[in-house]
């Protein structure tokens, strides 16, 4: 297979990954590395580099859909980015030290965990409770638009959320993913933010987190232009089109199918890692 066909096929695969990822809300970045390593036999370090770049592109590109809605909370985002950027730097350094087979196994476990998180029911009601001392100190409480005006909310569990964000950052830097699932878990479950505020703030944070490890990846030579080109353009186009068709599409079946694909890929990553195929 020559470079032209290789690039076209990877571009097509990345487009589908980005499209399904944004349509289902599971993110496309998480399947790029398994796609490149298992299907196209790309070395995992190049795959992680290409995936990370595509994560930055989707995060920044998706901002188009979110900015005018007024859901994201930039104070919470900025405060938590301290944890994610430190984590991302730690993760990026770990990538250079761990064996590629170990990275593959960790990747597989994260895939399985993402599928598990996606299958759990969302917490719809916002049982807000009294204001939290630390959140008040950091002026995090805010409001978001609803049909009848604006609904205010209080923020909780700041230390717990901050710690989990560090983990999200490490995983992002280590595996070249956005860690959107862990970020939403921290904000939705621990800090008890409304779901829509969690998802949009998480998306806002993903680009900054990924940018923290990108410099390390570039200097290590993980970012191969010939590979990044089809991956970045494919994922970006797919996710933008996916976000546009989000409003009316029936996504529940797709979510189940895409989660099943993620489980299969996760098991294959773990198996190949354990049998030394990386």
């Amino acid at each position, binding site marked *: 297979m020559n*470079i032209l066909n290789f690039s076209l096929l990877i571009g097509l695969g990345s487009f589908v990954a980005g499209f399904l990822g944004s349509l289902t809300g599971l993110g496309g970045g998480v399947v790029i590395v398994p796609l490149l390593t298992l299907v196209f036999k790309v070395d995992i370090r190049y795959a992680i580099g290409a995936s990370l770049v595509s994560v930055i592109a989707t995060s920044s590109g998706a901002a188009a859909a979110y900015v005018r809605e007024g859901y994201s909370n930039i104070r919470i985002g900025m405060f938590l980015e301290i944890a994610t950027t430190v984590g991302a730097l730690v993760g990026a350094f770990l990538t250079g030290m761990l064996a590629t087979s170990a990275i593959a196994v960790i990747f597989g476990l994260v895939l399985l965990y993402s599928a598990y998180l996606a299958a759990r029911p969302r917490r719809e009601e916002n049982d807000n409770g009294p204001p939290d001392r630390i959140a008040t100190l950091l002026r995090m409480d805010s409001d978001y638009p609803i049909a009848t005006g604006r609904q205010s909310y209080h923020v909780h569990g700041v230390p717990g959320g901050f710690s989990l964000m560090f983990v999200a950052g490490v995983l992002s830097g280590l595996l070249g993913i956005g860690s959107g699932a862990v970020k939403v878990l921290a904000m939705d479950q621990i800090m008890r933010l409304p779901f829509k505020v969690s998802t949009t703030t998480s998306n806002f944070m993903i680009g900054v987190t990924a940018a923290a490890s990108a410099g390390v990846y570039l200097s290590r030579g993980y970012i191969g232009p010939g*590979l990044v080109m089809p991956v970045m353009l494919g994922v970006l186009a797919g996710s933008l089109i996916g976000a546009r068709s989000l409003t009316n599409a029936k996504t529940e079946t797709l979510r189940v199918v895409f989660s099943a694909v993620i489980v299969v890929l996760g098991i294959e990553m773990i198996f190949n890692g354990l049998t030394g195929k990386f």
Partner: protein
Amino acid sequence: MKHTTNRASRWTDERVEEILGKLLIAGVILAATFVLCGGARYLIHYGAGLPQYGVFHGEPADLRTLSGILKDAVALHGEGLIQLGIVLLVATPIARVAFSVFAFARQRDILYVILTLIVLSLLLYSFVGGLNQP
């Protein structure tokens, strides 16, 4: 467009978010344009060759440092142009954080100016430090 005389109200969170969003979109479009043009040149030159990403050997030094990337991009090398697009893409969220410092300063929110400066210095440490290594 609403015109207000009150200085602080021009820098509400909503207004800041809107500017931030536009900044991100502009950065992505610019980066994607470079990657697309570089990609076309790369495929025209090397399309018939064989992909070399199966075994890790690391990218050559001129594609790992900012000066090398700029030199290759000015010479209109396909890979240099793609790499410059990637650098612009990475710089976009960093520019977002830098703008947030300014916006929080206009809101006289000293606490968040400090928190944002911490994030900015971490990003610049990785980005500038990483790209200047020999």
